[in-house]
């Protein structure tokens, strides 16, 4: 959603719409995490009155979908791919291979025995 997007491009690496969108979602999630956790706490706390908990449930469901962690997806920072991404290297499998062979990833070397 464009209301959350940064007015100026603020990420480096590979840039496409999906990466920018995912970055926006990450930022929105980080901003609203405390609020979400507070609401989740109220909902889970069985000692609070039922009415308060139900209201908290409503509030949580009313929050924007970008504030949800399930919206975030690890994407390749070198090629923008959404599949086959190694989360340790934040890279998809082929970009990982290229960079590993080129020696850009410290501690990674091609297996040979």
């Amino acid at each position, binding site marked *: 959603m464009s209301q959350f997007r940064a007015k100026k491009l603020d990420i480096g690496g590979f840039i496409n719409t999906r*990466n920018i969108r995912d970055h926006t979602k990450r930022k929105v999630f980080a901003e609203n995490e405390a609020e979400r956790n507070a609401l989740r706490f109220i909902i889970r706390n069985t000692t609070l009155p039922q009415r308060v908990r139900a209201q908290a449930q409503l509030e949580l469901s009313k929050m924007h979908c970008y504030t949800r962690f399930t919206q975030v997806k690890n994407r390749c920072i070198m090629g923008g791919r959404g599949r086959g991404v190694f989360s340790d290297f934040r890279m998809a499998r082929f970009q990982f291979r290229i960079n590993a062979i080129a020696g850009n990833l410290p501690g990674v070397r091609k297996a040979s025995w």
Partner: protein
Amino acid sequence: MSVPRSRILDLMKTQCAIFNTTYNPQRLRLGSRILHQRLKGPSVASYYPPRIGTIAQLRKLYPEDTFIDEKEEDWVEHLNVARSRGKENPKKKRTAAESKKLNKRK
């Protein structure tokens, strides 16, 4: 050898005070699990590398130095060439009357 329950509860109370957890002998669902979780927002938000080393950032950092932006220079040169050939962009119309004139000519 059985230990009285009150003694176990006392032990639990001390444990909770030491390890900073909620004393909850009735095992009620208090949701404190959620408050104990670490916030993952900062690490999630810093997944993509930041954009650094742009000319605008360099100019801001070192105002006394001059940085040449080749793309910008090319663009300005192209604009100057277009202006010399009389192919520049039309002036922005500031008032309603000016923009009306244009419509009449059509």
